[in-house]
């Protein structure tokens, strides 16, 4: 469904992504990992044509460069790492913005019963229905993250692109969110691509991994098939496996473990 070949992105004369290639089938999930500044967010932005790029990105056999903004919005929905607005819209209005491409055209854009149903469903899933009239600036960071997740879901895209989706979320909601996204992807036969920092969390979400370092693709495929201790050390410049083992040892002090 999504194929990326020899993708290159530069900011001015500085190359940020160099020769990235991978593909994704419907209902597949993919985790993008790598150290800070390796180009993860840039890759997500390039995937939904927010940035000029070289190489090819095709969605259902069609280059995304030829797709109109609304076609792109039906294919991809991006949930950014941080969202800002000076103006405090209500939770309902913010999530409804995700339905922009479905709104009835005319002299003025209007929402339909279906739009309202979808928004309500997304608020229910993100446990925000009781806060639908609350202004977003009164919410906590975690609640706000859920509002933007609800907006992304309301867009009803074929591929969801998540930039560190578990930021600001408590542990319970992190687990719930990822399990819901997996279920959403399987049931609707759609894809989710997520940028993660937490390898444990990423592993609980998907088996398919893409590792980046300094804009280069270090590896792509099934985690169990290509990831080794040496590989992770090469990506992160630290012994990730021994760190994980140390962490696990510390857990052994918990009495009922």
């Amino acid at each position, binding site marked *: 469904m999504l194929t990326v070949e020899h993708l290159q992105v530069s900011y001015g004369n500085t190359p940020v992504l160099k020769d990235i290639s991978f593909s994704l089938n419907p209902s597949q999930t993919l985790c993008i990992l790598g150290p800070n500044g390796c180009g993860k967010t840039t890759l997500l*932005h390039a995937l*939904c044509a*927010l940035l*000029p790029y070289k190489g090819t990105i095709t969605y259902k056999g069609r280059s995304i460069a030829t797709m*109109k*903004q*609304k076609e*792109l*919005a*039906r294919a*991809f*929905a*991006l949930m*950014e790492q*941080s*969202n*800002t*607005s*000076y*103006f*405090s*819209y*209500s939770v309902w*209005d913010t999530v409804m*913005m*995700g339905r*922009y*491409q479905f*709104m009835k055209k005319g*002299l*003025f*854009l209007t929402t339909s019963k279906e739009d309202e149903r979808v928004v309500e469903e997304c608020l229910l899933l993100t446990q925000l229905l009781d806060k639908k009239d609350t*202004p*977003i*600036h*009164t919410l906590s*960071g975690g609640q*706000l*993250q859920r509002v*933007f997740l609800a*907006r992304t879901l309301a*867009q009803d895209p074929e591929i969801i692109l998540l930039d560190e989706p578990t*930021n*600001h979320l408590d542990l319970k909601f992190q687990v719930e969110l990822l399990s819901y996204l997996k279920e959403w992807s399987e049931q609707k036969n759609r894809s989710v691509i997520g940028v993660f920092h937490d390898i444990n969390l990423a592993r609980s979400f998907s088996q398919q991994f893409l590792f980046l370092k300094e804009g280069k693709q270090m590896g792509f495929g099934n985690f169990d098939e290509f990831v080794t201790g040496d590989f992770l050390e090469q990506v992160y410049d630290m012994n990730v496996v021994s760190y994980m083992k140390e962490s696990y040892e510390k857990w052994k002090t918990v009495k009922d473990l």
Partner: protein
Amino acid sequence: MKTKRNAIFIYLFTILAFLLATCIGSQLISPAEIGRILCAHFFPTEQATNLSEIHAAIFMKVRLPRTLMAFLVGACLSVSGTMMQSILQNPLASSYTLGVSSGASLGAALIILALSSFSLPGIFLPITAFVFGLLTVFLAIFFTNQLDQRMENQTIILVGMVLSLFVNAILTMITSLFSNHLQRFMFWSMGSFASTTWEQMRLILPFILVAFLLACCFTKEMDIMTFGEVQAKSVGVPIKRVKLLLITLSALLTGVCVAFCGTIGFIDLIAPHMVRKLFGPSHKYVIPFSALLGGGFMMLADLISRTILSPRQLPVGAVTALIGAPFFAYIYFHKEKGGRTSC
């Protein structure tokens, strides 16, 4: 319920401002007399009893066009400010940020100089100011597009500011070289409705109506754009096209006002800000109610400018700045928990 109550408040405020602005002046005219004057004007066959011809002339030829122009200018500046604040995601932005007033001022200074040497019809002043104002904005957009294909907000603001400063520098040179000719320019640049005519009203009304209607068609996009360009693109807003259209509309609305009435500040910041406090940030409310509130404010500012030191008239721009600056500082800093929402 709250929305309805606030809407009624704004309707009443606008009507009250209109009545005060038309009743009070060197000659007091009662609302009842205004009603009779209007009846006599629109239904001339009806016998006008106890109708003062002087009052009728003052009302129909001076006060009514002046008050209506003040309302229209206030409404246009507020709608223009609202649009620019949404596009640039900044509650302190206005189309003055992109150099409309600097360009219009340069045009006005040049034409006032020309009028002192050649005999040109008076309408040349607003037309030249309008063209120069719009040209400056288009130049800002052109340079932004050359520098940054994605037309990002910070590039627009920076280019607008640089261009404004450059145009202001030319203006300063002209005013220092030809200072003896530029008294009229100084008064024009501070803003006034003193020379408003029905002819001017007829000239600007079509521009204003079209721009206002178009603005109302893009309220959803304006809402989404306050969350930033990446989010707007991601949900499907054709951001470059919408942004260009809204900047042009905003410049058009401000350009028309500056051309006829000079530079008048603060209304475009105060009215949208107050409406957001009353109705929330949704542009389907902010656009129409900012127009009414801004129009109401401007009618009152004009009333103060022509009555407070009567028979002398103050420039209305000075009145809006004198009242607006502290008032805006108060409502801006006296806020509930809020500001930029982010996660």
